[in-house]
């Protein structure tokens, strides 16, 4: 019964969502207040229906209803209860339902804060979100229903969740990542509303800003979690693989970062209006493109869902309707009026423009690298691969350039900055960072690239510090009072920028100062890696809820003192007959110790991979800083005010 209710509510939701995407627009057209007023209740109804549908599917999972095809493919009665719940989004259909749920959650959040907006704008925003919901609900119902039954021959037990996904990472990573991806549809909806109403003033930028900041924070957190998950779960200690699916989440992040900055200019100064609109469309399009790449099977990836051309076709159609439609609307409606506001070469507008240009170049670079194999194949040139070596050599220099300017930008003021205010701190920071990084490189014998990256990191830190000191040294109150009086937005920016630097340092140090060995070890033998002695004590059999495991015990010593005990495993999942390597790691602020079991060799010895990775945690720590920055920016008081004039 439950799955039928789920399917039924989903169909109802589709019906209401399609009305939502039409009625308010008709209302706007005909100037009918009654019709525009339907937007809010309809949004909330759709959200409730999708939520009920989601609950029924969760119930089917928790109740082990293997008569539901999707449950039987992705769950098993032996599966621990928390994985039964998260298995819901372990496959294509369920993850799409999660997508729809997140979308309706964002839409209702907008609907509940509608009072901030002029009625017609609010109605159009909700209608656009309703149209996106309609697309995804139709996709769910027509090609990927998770409620299909296996009757009367329903299996006694399920085929189990893919062992790779039986992890804490699956519980948190997809929902948060989707919150980010889908959140950008709010900024998109605002942009479309601005295009439809022709009101491309700075007001839409102010409304869109906090939503964009929150989505950006979620996406940052989602990517950070994903990277951390891949690091400990996949068993070879990498944290970013430039895999198409990773790129699919990274591109909206880059574009979203650009959008955050350009919204700031448009809001404060009323310039770059049509560019900001285009960027909002671009960011949302890249989220959709990601969904297409992951779910259509056109690219080969470690993470992609089972390929299905019908689904690919459907989502391509969605892509064409939403992206093509909005780009066409943009081409036709974007205002031709040049903004009359002028700014100087050193004004903050110019720095933010540079930021946007560089971020766009980076986005296009990732896009080019990700799609190139596809273009190559489509033109009949054969198959090629574009992987980490390409991105490392092309992306890195441009990214470093961006970070260099990221240090200077905050020093500038709107309209114009005096050269004196710029060159003095820059010179000081340049000298300090060059000296400090040279010293570090000299004592640790790092490479040239490490020197450059470290200098850039110090450069940003010193400039941020100098700027902060400069800001709090003005005025009459005490330093502390002045430090507290600086706007939240300022601290949000500092946090996020410092986050970038922390990640950069992590990325740099883990690449130049990581140690890796593959050794053959028998019990009681040990291996010395980077000053750490890894002793292989013993091997034992352990039984898990749905697997049996061979678990090794390693004791790690440094200078004769024990620092960690590690238990890497080889798990054999009985239902899927699949072996999983479960690496063991000891996390530390300055280093991670990482042991992963390879193949069992003759007698009782094992091939073992041992890594000592410097500062790898910093990569994700920096991510958390950025998340905090994004959330703090969204909390700025200015956004709570209601809009008096439409």
């Amino acid at each position: 019964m439950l799955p039928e209710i789920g399917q039924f509510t989903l169909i109802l939701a589709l019906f209401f969502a399609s009305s939502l995407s039409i009625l308010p627009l008709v209302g706007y057209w005909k100037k009918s207040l009654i019709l525009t007023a339907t937007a809010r209740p309809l949004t909330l109804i759709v959200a409730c229906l999708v939520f009920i549908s989601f609950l029924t599917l969760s119930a089917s999972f928790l109740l082990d209803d293997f008569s539901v095809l999707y449950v039987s493919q992705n769950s098993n009665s032996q599966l621990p209860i928390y994985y039964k719940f998260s298995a819901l989004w372990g496959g294509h259909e369920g993850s799409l339902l999660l997508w729809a749920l997140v979308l309706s959650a964002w839409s209702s959040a907008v609907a509940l804060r509608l009072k901030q907006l002029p009625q017609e704008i609010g109605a159009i925003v909700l209608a656009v979100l309703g149209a996106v919901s309609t697309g995804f609900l139709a996709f769910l119902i027509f090609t990927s229903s998770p409620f299909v039954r296996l009757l009367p021959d329903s299996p006694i037990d399920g085929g189990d969740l893919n062992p790779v996904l039986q992890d804490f990472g699956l519980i948190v990573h997809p929902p948060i990542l989707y919150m980010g991806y889908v959140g950008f549809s709010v900024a998109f909806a605002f942009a479309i509303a601005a295009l439809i109403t022709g009101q491309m003033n700075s007001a839409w930028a102010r409304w869109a800003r906090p939503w964009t900041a929150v989505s950006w924070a979620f996406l940052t957190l989602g990517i950070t979690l994903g990277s951390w998950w891949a690091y400990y779960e996949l068993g070879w200690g990498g944290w970013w693989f430039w895999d198409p699916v990773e790129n699919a989440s990274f591109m909206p992040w880059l574009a979203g970062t650009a959008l955050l900055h350009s919204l700031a200019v448009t809001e404060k100064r009323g310039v770059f209006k049509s560019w900001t609109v285009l960027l909002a469309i671009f960011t949302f399009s890249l989220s959709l493109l990601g969904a297409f790449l992951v779910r259509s099977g056109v690219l080969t990836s470690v993470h992609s869902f089972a390929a299905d051309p019908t689904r690919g076709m459907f989502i391509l159609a969605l892509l064409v309707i939403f992206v093509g439609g909005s780009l066409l609307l943009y081409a036709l409606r974007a205002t031709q009026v040049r903004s009359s506001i002028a700014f100087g070469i050193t004004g903050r507008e110019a720095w933010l423009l540079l930021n946007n240009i560089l971020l766009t170049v980076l986005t296009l670079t990732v896009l080019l690298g990700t799609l190139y194999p596809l273009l190559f194949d489509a033109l009949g040139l054969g198959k090629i691969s574009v992987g980490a070596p390409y991105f490392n050599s092309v992306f890195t220099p441009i990214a470093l350039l961006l970070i260099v300017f990221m240090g200077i930008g905050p020093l500038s003021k709107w309209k114009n900055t005096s050269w004196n205010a710029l060159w003095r701190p820059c010179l000081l920071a340049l000298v300090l960072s060059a000296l400090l990084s040279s010293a570090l490189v000299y004592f640790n014998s790092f490479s040239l690239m490490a020197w450059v990256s470290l200098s850039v990191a110090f450069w940003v830190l010193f400039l941020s510090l100098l700027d902060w000191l400069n800001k709090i040294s003005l005025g009459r109150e005490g330093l502390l009072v002045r430090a507290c009086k600086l706007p939240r937005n300022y601290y949000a920016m500092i946090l996020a920028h410092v986050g970038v630097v922390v990640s950069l340092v992590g990325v740099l140090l883990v690449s130049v100062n990581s140690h890796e060995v593959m050794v053959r070890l028998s019990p009681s033998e040990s291996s010395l890696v980077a000053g750490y002695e890894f002793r292989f004590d013993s091997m034992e059999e352990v039984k898990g809820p749905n697997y049996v495991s061979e678990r090794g015990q390693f004791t790690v010593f440094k200078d004769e003192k024990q620092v960690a005990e590690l238990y890497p495993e080889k798990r054999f999942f009985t239902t899927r007959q699949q072996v999983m390597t479960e690496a063991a790691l000891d996390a530390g602020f300055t280093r991670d110790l990482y042991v992963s079991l390879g193949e069992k060799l003759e007698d009782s010895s094992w091939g073992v991979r041992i890594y000592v990775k410097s500062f790898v945690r910093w990569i994700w720590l920096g991510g958390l800083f950025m998340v905090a920055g994004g959330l703090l920016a969204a909390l700025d008081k200015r956004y709570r005010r209601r809009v008096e004039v439409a």
Partner: protein
Amino acid sequence: MKKLVRFLPFIIFISLGVIFYSQLGKNSQELPSALVGKKVPDFKLVSLVENTLQTNSDLPKEAYLINFWGTWCPACHLEHPFLNQLALQGVTILGIDYKDDAEQARQWLSEKGNPYIDVLMDETGVFGLDMGVTGAPETFIIDSNGIVVHRHQGPLNAQNWSTIKGFLK
């Protein structure tokens, strides 16, 4: 002019859409062999049947198939009956016993029948490497000039044979 620039994102996107459309439904896993258009690489392998050393000069002169298999490979079990059928239809198949044990291979052939004109032993997988093999079963189609024209990964069966047959001339 200015107006046209605004259409640029739309135009670029639509061309991308066309490319996506053309790639839909293609198997992104399928990897064409790098040997297509080239001769079979040099080899010196021992025949499983006659225990003699065979080289390129011993290859069939007509169009034929080179089939990599092994007794360790589950999909080869599925494929074998179809190969027997092809042999009956007069298709020339050269077998390469890939990374396998000669004794087990002989037993396999005596139990399941031998569709091959000859079976060469590639115990170390060196010839497999030279042919760019990534697993078993894998089948190469060689035309009457001795040129590799196609490679098929995975078991041959009645369905895929109808397209593969076209290469065999």
